[in-house]
C-alpha cells in the first residue's frame, strides 16, 4: 500500500502535466489573496437598483463610454461558448428574453454557438468582427487563455463585453461576473462548519477535476474545513452522473457508518446523493446543493438542514443591458463588474421553490419579470 501512495501522486501528476496545455492556463487554484478578496466582496453591500441584482455591483468604478456613442437602434452580436449544460440553457434563455425587453433599442441580435470548442469560437468572433454587422460584441469565453487573442483583436474594432469566464486582457469595456468560485466555497463551507456536530464526518462530492470555477470552489471550502479541523472523509468525482453519485455515497455510508454532511461543488446530483441516504435507511445529512428546483423541492419536502449557493444565471441579463448602455454612451461599471452572488437559506426557501418549473431549472435566474416566463424556461 505504501508503494501505491507514492505512485498515485506521481502518475496523476504526470497526467495533469500532460493535460496542462489543454487547460485554460497554468493557474493557481488555491490563491490566498483571491480567497481573501472573495471574502471581502461577500461582506460588501451591493449598489444599484433594489431587487435587480443583475444590474447591481459590488464595488468597482464607472468607466466612460462616450467614445462608443452612436445612434440606435443597435445591432448586437454574441459569441457563446456553448449551451451544453442546464446552467447555460437557463442563462441563454434569460439573455434572449432580456433582448426582447430592450427591443426598442436593439435592431438585431445575432448569436453564434461555439459548442464548447475554442477554435470554433475564435472563428465565430473573427466572423462577427469582419461582417461589419455588429455595433457591439458580447463574449462568453469557452476557455480563458485560448480566447484572449481573438478578444483583443475584436476590441480594436468595436466595444466588447465579456461575462462568465474571463480573458487575460483588460481591453473589453467590462467583464461581468459574480463573486466566483472562492465565494462559493466560503459560503458553503461556513454553513457546514456552523451546523456540523463535533467530530462530524463530511463527504465532498465534485464533478470533475481541472476546471477553474470548480477547483476554486473546492480549494476555498477545503481551506475552511482544514482551518476548523473538520473531518473530511473523502472528496470524490461523480462526473455529474446521478447513478454514480448515488453509488459513491452508498459506499461511503457503508464504509463510515454515518455521514453527517455532504458538500457539493455543483448541485445537479444533490437529489441522487440524498436518495442514497433514504435507501440506506440513514438520516438526511447537512447538505449544500445549488439552486436547482429538484433540490429545493426535496429540501422543503423533507425539512433538510441545507443551503443552496448560487452561481446566478441572472448574470446572462447584465451584458445585454451593458451593451445598450455602452452604445448610448452611458457609463458602466468596469473593467471588472462584480455581481452579487446570493445564497438561498431556510428563511427564503419558499420564495424559490416552484413546482411548475423543471427539475434542473435554476431558481436564482432573475427571470420572473421577463417576457414568456415560465413557459419559455420549460415551466407550466
Amino acid at each position, binding site marked *: 500500500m505504501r508503494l501505491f501512495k507514492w505512485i498515485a501522486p506521481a502518475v496523476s501528476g504526470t497526467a495533469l502535466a500532460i493535460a496542462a496545455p489543454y487547460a485554460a492556463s497554468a493557474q493557481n487554484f488555491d490563491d490566498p489573496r483571491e480567497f481573501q478578496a472573495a471574502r471581502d466582496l461577500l461582506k460588501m453591500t451591493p449598489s444599484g437598483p433594489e431587487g435587480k441584482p443583475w444590474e447591481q455591483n459590488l464595488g468597482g468604478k464607472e468607466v466612460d463610454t462616450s467614445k462608443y456613442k452612436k445612434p440606435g437602434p443597435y445591432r448586437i452580436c454574441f459569441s457563446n461558448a456553448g449551451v451544453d449544460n*442546464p446552467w447555460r440553457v437557463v442563462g441563454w434563455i434569460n439573455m434572449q428574453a432580456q433582448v426582447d425587453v430592450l427591443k426598442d433599442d436593439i435592431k438585431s441580435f445575432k448569436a453564434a454557438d461555439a459548442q464548447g470548442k475554442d477554435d470554433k469560437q475564435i472563428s465565430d468572433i473573427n466572423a462577427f468582427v469582419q461582417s461589419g454587422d455588429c455595433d457591439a460584441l458580447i463574449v462568453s469565453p469557452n476557455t480563458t487563455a485560448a480566447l484572449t487573442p481573438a478578444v483583443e483583436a475584436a476590441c480594436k474594432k468595436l466595444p466588447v463585453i465579456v461575462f462568465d469566464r474571463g480573458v487575460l486582457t483588460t481591453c473589453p469595456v467590462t467583464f461581468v461576473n459574480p463573486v466566483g468560485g472562492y465565494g462559493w466555497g466560503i459560503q458553503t463551507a461556513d454553513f457546514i462548519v456552523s451546523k456540523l456536530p463535533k467530530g462530524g464526518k463530511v463527504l465532498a462530492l465534485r464533478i470533475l477535476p481541472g476546471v477553474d470555477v470548480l477547483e476554486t470552489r473546492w480549494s476555498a471550502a477545503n481551506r475552511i474545513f482544514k482551518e476548523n479541523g473538520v473531518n473530511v472523509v473523502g472528496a470524490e468525482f461523480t462526473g455529474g452522473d446521478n447513478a454514480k453519485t448515488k453509488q459513491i455515497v452508498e459506499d461511503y455510508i457503508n464504509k463510515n457508518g454515518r455521514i453527517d454532511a455532504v458538500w457539493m461543488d455543483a448541485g445537479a446530483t444533490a437529489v441522487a446523493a440524498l436518495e442514497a441516504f433514504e435507501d440506506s435507511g440513514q438520516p438526511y445529512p447537512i447538505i449544500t446543493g445549488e439552486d436547482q428546483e429538484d433540490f429545493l423541492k426535496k429540501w422543503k419536502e423533507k425539512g433538510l438542514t441545507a443551503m443552496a449557493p448560487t452561481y446566478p444565471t441572472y448574470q446572462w441579463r447584465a451584458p445585454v443591458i451593458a451593451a445598450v448602455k455602452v452604445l448610448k454612451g452611458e457609463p458602466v461599471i468596469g473593467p471588472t463588474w462584480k455581481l452579487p452572488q446570493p445564497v438561498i437559506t431556510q428563511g427564503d426557501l419558499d420564495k424559490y421553490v416552484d413546482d411548475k418549473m423543471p427539475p434542473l431549472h435554476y431558481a436564482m435566474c432573475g427571470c420572473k419579470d421577463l417576457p414568456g416566463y415560465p413557459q419559455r424556461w420549460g415551466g407550466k
Partner: protein
Amino acid sequence: MAHVARRINVALVVFLLFYLVIGLLQPNYLEPAGAMNFLRRAAPLAILAAGQLFVLISGGFDLSVGSLVTLTVVGGSMLTANDPGNTWWAIAALYATGLCVGFINGAVVAYLRTPSIIATLGTLLSVNGVAMMWSGGSPRGYLPENFRMFGRLVFHDVPVVKIFPAAILVFAVVWALAQWGLHGTVFGRRVFAVGDNARAAQLAGVQVASVRIAVFVISALAAVTAGILLGGFGGVSVDVGVGLELQAIAACVVGGAQLMGGRGTLVGAVAGALTLTALFTLLTLLGWPQPLKETAQGVILIIAVAFGAWRRRRTG
C-alpha cells in the same frame, strides 16, 4: 484437472478475486445485504452485456445502446409527465422505440451492407440528438415512483439474503431468457453460425439478414431494460448512458467473447459485467485519484483480455 480448469471462465476467477479484495477492504460486501447491493449495481451493465453478446457473436458491434439508455430515461420522464397512471403505456412505448431502433440498426447492416460499427455509431449520434432535442438538453421532469421501482425498490426482511432489490429479479429474468435464446434454441445456433462464417451459414440455408436484424433488436430491448433500471436507480439525467456501450462490449470481451464473432458465452458476458462493476467499486474504495483510476481501468481491461486470448491459444 487441466480439462476442468480450461472450462472455467477466466472472468469468473478475476471477478471472485476482485470481490475478495473488496470484501477485505469493506467487510460488509461479504454480508448478504452487501452482496445484494452489489448485484443490483451490476444489473444494468450485465443486461446490456447480455444483449450486446448476441450482436458480438453474430460478428457485429452495437454502439447505439448507451444513447438508447439515455433516450429511455429522458423519454420516460417526458412520456409519464409526473403521472404514475402513464407508467405502463410509457414503458410499452419505450420498448416499441427500442424495437424500431434495433430494427433500423439490423436492417442497415443486413441490407445496406454497412459495417455495424459505422451503422450503430450513426444511430448513437441520432438517438442522442433525439434525446437532446426532446429534453432541450436538460431534464424536463421526474420519473414517477412506480416507474422507478424496478431500479430502486428493495424488499426487506427476506429470508437468507435479508434484502432483495427488484433490479436483481429483472436481471434474473433477462438472464434466463438470454441463456435460453442463445444456448437453447435453433436461433441461438444460427447466431453462432452467422458470426463464424456468414457465407457458409447462408449456403446452409440460414436467413442471415433476419438473424442480423434479430440480434440488434435483442440488444436494443436489453438497452431499454437497462435504461429503466438506471433511471429507476438514479433518477432523470441526460448523460446517464454515456460510455455504457463500450463498457458492455468490454464486459463481453473480458468474458471471453471474440470481437470477430462466432464465440462467446452468456455466463462469460455476465461474469465480465460483474468483473467491471467490481473493478469500478474497488477503485472507488481504494480512494485513488481519478486519473489513476482511469489508467488502472484501462490497463486491467487489456490484461484480462490478453490473458483470455493467450489461454485460448494455449488450450485451443
